[in-house]
């Protein structure tokens, strides 16, 4: 009896961990995108980027609310977003990298959007009804995000010499961060076995094929570089995350429970 209880507890803890990871990916990328607000290349694109940012922040809220509900203890979404430190965030590193120039933002969105298209399609089949519902909402958003990032990739890649060069530089700089998004640890393996989590490795080849096709059409080159950076799911981050958190969490921590 006690063993079964402890295993229940562990599987619940696994699920909370997993939900927080998905929430962290969404929140951190959403925050990065929100940094474009008022700095977009022109008004229409500024608003479009803000919309995408809000889709991600909305997704993170669904995840954090679910994690709060699972953990009980009276936690709220704000506790997860604002009161955890760098080491407790478990987002993939690609999401926390600075927004860079516009080409860099577009290249990252392309990689992430193609990834999410496959990831959320698989998550739709999750035995966890809440995660399946989050995926159902996310997949519609992602279809639109991908439409945007694909078109911008074609426009910039096959545009001027400068836009082509900036896209290629961004792709080369980001490539090493696209490996860990297909990896998982024991926590996620247990959830994959239980039919709850997604095994991203299953669609890695399809992701590469999709991305390669778009890059080829955009006259851009798929990097063959071997380097890979990893650590996000373990809480080991680049130096950029702490600066992002400082800005994002400052008001909440300086004025706890402030209302406006």
């Amino acid at each position, binding site marked *: 009896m006690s063993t079964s209880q402890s295993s229940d507890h562990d599987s619940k803890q696994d699920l909370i961990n997993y939900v927080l990871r998905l929430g962290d990916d969404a929140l951190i990328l959403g925050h990065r995108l929100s940094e474009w607000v008022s700095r977009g290349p022109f*008004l229409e694109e500024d608003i479009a980027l803000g919309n995408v940012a809000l889709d991600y922040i909305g997704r993170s809220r669904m995840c954090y609310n679910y994690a709060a509900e699972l953990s009980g203890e009276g936690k709220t979404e704000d506790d997860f977003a604002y009161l955890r430190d760098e080491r407790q965030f478990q987002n993939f590193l690609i999401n926390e990298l600075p927004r860079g120039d516009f080409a860099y933002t577009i290249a990252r969105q392309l990689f992430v959007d193609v990834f999410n298209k496959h990831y959320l399609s698989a998550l739709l089949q999750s035995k966890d009804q809440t995660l399946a519902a989050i995926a159902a909402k996310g997949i519609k958003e992602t279809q639109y995000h991908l439409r945007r990032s694909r078109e911008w990739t074609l426009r910039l890649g096959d545009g001027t010499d400068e836009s082509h060069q900036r896209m290629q530089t961004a792709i080369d700089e980001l490539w090493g961060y696209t490996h860990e998004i297909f990896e998982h640890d024991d926590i996620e393996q247990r959830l994959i076995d239980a039919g709850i989590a997604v095994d991203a490795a299953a669609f890695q080849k399809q992701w590469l094929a999709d991305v390669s096709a778009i890059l080829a059409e955009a006259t851009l080159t798929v990097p063959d570089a071997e380097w890979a950076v990893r650590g996000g799911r373990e809480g080991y981050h680049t130096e950029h995350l702490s600066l992002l958190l400082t800005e994002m969490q400052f008001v909440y921590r300086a004025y706890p429970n402030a209302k406006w």
Partner: protein
Amino acid sequence: MSLEHLELFEVFVRSARGLDHKHAGSLHAADHEQALEYARDCYTRRSEGVSIWVVKSRDICASQEDDSDSFFDPSDDKPYRHATYFPLPKEVGNM
């Protein structure tokens, strides 16, 4: 990217319960496809629409202010073009 490379488009949105597309505003975009997406982002983000048309502003042929006299004034003295001009016979009742 500067605005000089972009075209001006007019946006028409049909709301969920509306039968016709109504002019919602204008925006800049590189081509029709992008204009449609920006229209979605700028003019339907509060669930205003179920259908969008975009058309290049320069493709719209508009009447000119100078033509007002000849275009519109001649109909001012033709009230019989309004159905309400004609008294209804009592037998018809309400129409």
